[in-house]
């Protein structure tokens, strides 16, 4: 069982106040974001590649595989999703390996807003969260009130976490304050009547932001606006998550904690299909942000096929041989 926190950590008014000056105007915000240290692309990619050469074996591998399973946001975001498919996914999230009660459950299932109620019912009190993509996912091309209604609808249906997309068009044309204010508004829409909040994950679609400098700026923008998590991609645009992009975001959350004392989570999503890749991400979390982030409250994988590979590797370690795709469930 995962031990995810039931309610969001206290971010909001405090954090907004801390950055009141930097976000007072479009020009102030631009100055702040463009004043962040640049990223050298060659050096960043070299560093990420070097982290990818760490050799994680035996006990370390077993630890990493179990940890990775607890960090999976098991995702289905297809036009052809059905209630039955979502229920099956929830069963898988709660008991990824039905033959092994010791196998941990995943952190969450991630679905479209209209599937939230179904997922919520299926997951019951298992502790597995329901994450909903909202704000006109994946393009984010809709009016603000529609995005807010989309969010509120998912929260009302019981979503524990909201994965919103930023307006990449506004970001790329330098209208940072617009992006900032939209995140603040969506975060407000994450409020529940009982006074709690759904966690807010902010998706940048880093494949569209193109440069690492933009990734770093978007990370700070979202963190200042009150994001609980920053997330790479929707999974609908290539490239989705990459190790260097995730590393830049991990540097950002690390630096943000140095500056404010507050932790923000990171979620790479899309394109992580193999255990070997997942372990490279965990090594990067460990060595860039530090072990405090080695926790499903602070690091997630947005993935669908990854889980089965993690399970196959896990059973390989336990039994000494590979089973094959027919020994793990399809969904």
């Amino acid at each position, binding site marked *: 069982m995962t031990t995810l926190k039931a309610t969001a950590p206290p971010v909001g008014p405090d954090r907004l106040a801390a950055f009141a000056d930097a976000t007072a105007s479009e020009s102030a915000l631009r100055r702040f974001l463009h004043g962040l*240290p*640049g*990223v*050298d692309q*060659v*050096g*960043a990619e*070299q*560093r990420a590649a070097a982290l990818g*050469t*760490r*050799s*994680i*074996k*035996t*006990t*370390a*591998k077993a*630890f*990493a595989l179990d*940890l990775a399973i607890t960090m999976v946001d098991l995702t289905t975001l297809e036009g052809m999703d059905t209630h039955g498919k979502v229920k099956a996914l929830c069963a898988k999230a709660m008991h990824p390996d039905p033959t092994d009660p010791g196998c941990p459950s995943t952190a969450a299932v991630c679905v479209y807003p209209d599937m939230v109620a179904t997922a919520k019912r299926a997951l019951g009190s298992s502790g597995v969260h329901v994450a909903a993509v909202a704000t006109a996912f994946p393009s984010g091309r809709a009016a603000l009130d529609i995005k807010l209604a989309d969010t509120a609808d998912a929260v009302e249906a019981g979503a524990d976490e909201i994965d919103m997309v930023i307006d990449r068009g506004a970001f790329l044309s330098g209208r940072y304050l617009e992006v900032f204010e939209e995140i603040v508004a969506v975060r407000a829409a994450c409020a529940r009547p009982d006074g709690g909040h759904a966690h807010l994950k902010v998706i940048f679609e880093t494949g569209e932001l193109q440069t690492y400098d933009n990734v770093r700026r978007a990370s700070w923008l979202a963190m200042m606006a009150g994001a609980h998590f920053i997330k790479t991609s929707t999974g609908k645009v290539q490239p989705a998550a990459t190790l260097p992009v995730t590393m830049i975001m991990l*540097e950002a959350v690390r630096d943000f904690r140095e500056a404010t004392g507050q932790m923000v989570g990171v979620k790479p999503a899309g394109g992580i299909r193999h255990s070997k890749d997942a372990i490279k991400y*965990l*090594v990067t979390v*460990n*060595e860039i942000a530090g*072990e405090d982030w*080695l*926790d499903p409250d602070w690091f997630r994988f947005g993935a669908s096929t990854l889980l089965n590979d993690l399970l196959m590797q896990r059973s390989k370690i336990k039994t000494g041989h590979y089973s094959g795709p027919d020994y793990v469930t399809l969904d």
Partner: protein
Amino acid sequence: MTFEYAPAPESRAIVDIKPSYGLFIDGEFVDGHGKSFKSISPSTEEVLAEVAEANDADVDVAVKAARRAYTRVWSKMSGAERGKYLFRIARIIQERAREFAVLESIDNGKPIKETRDVDIPLVAAHFFYYAGWADKLAYALPGNGNNGADPQPLGVAGQVIPWNFPLLMLAWKIAPALACGNTVVLKPAETTPLTALLFAEVCQQADLPAGVVNILTGAGETGRAIVAHPGVDKVAFTGSTDVGRAIAKSVAGTDKRVTLELGGKAANIVFDDAPLDQAIEGIVNGIFFNQGHVCCAGSRLLVQESVADEVIATLKRRMKTLRVGDPLDKNTDIGAINSAEQLAKIRELSDIGEAEGAGRWSPACDLPQTGFWFPPTIFTGVSQAHRIAREEIFGPVLSILTFRTPKEAVEKANNTPFGLSAGIWTDKGSRILWMASQLRAGVVWSNTFNRFDPASPFGGYKESGYGREGGRHGLEAYLR
């Protein structure tokens, strides 16, 4: 949660270290006529093999064998044919890369990660690169004053190499010499002879004509004999400035050509607009790569005052993640110091740094009980007058100085008897170009450090030596 990396040792099974080795002369392994010495593993102090120490008579035999091979075979062979041998050697090295990597790591103490990903791939790359030049030498040195004639080889090259990159320095020396039509007598360093002896096997495997490559193991005396031998036409040396000076004296008045690649005390200069996370990696790579046993190591960090505190704090945090230990563990970042002698020198200079008032800091790290180890170390508050800012420590020890203006950075960077390399970290392209034109250093890296490529020339200013190795420039040292 703590993510402990389990041991991930590379297997030693692939290497076959013989109990004793002779000399490689005229295509054969032969017994030496001198004494012998032991090569040990610096990480465990285990004796690896007994190695012959070539004496004057052995040197004479080897130089004569090289001369015979030069006059009868190698200088007469077409460039294209010589190139074929070099391509063959390069391919064999690639095929046996893991064997070389493991052996180098055992004998030198450097991490397998580096021998596997840096040393051995670069060795192969050097042979491939110079193999390609072998039949194009006529185009290598346009207008070299040869009255329009094609450039000619020099003859027999006597080459003496250091212990910090044993096989890579061998490649830097042998590949261009052979491509240009010279034959060689090479002496690997006393503490790291094993990969050179394995390379001798590769020469046999490649059917390289006998005598083209001769490998003589030994210490200082053997090196002196090679350099002083009248049958040697060209001396190439990489090592300490003191020995370099002695070599220059010994060849003075002869017609031997000389190239020397000596010490360094490189400035790694970080401006306040630098990409800081990458600069930190560059600082780490600059001084902790290969335990700091790098002649072009960025051993002086010059950091702009406005970001000094941030850079030092971030550097310390980064250093806490460096893994010091078993060189054969694939997760080791910093291996063993190459010898007891070198360790004593690093300790001595570090103690002097402390006594001179600089602030010494190392992350907490458990060092193994046997073998030669030194933790990654930085000194803050260092001034130009400190010995640790002037002398080459050749270990994982960084001296940190600050500056306020680009002019001051240049003055401080150049204020050293050495001039091998330098690094500049800034987002401003014009500043990179201006700095590079002002710095008296053979190699200037911008927004990177310790990056090598066979196509790029390498060499020093001032007491860092003369001549260039690598690239088209590297051919000049072996042609007339």
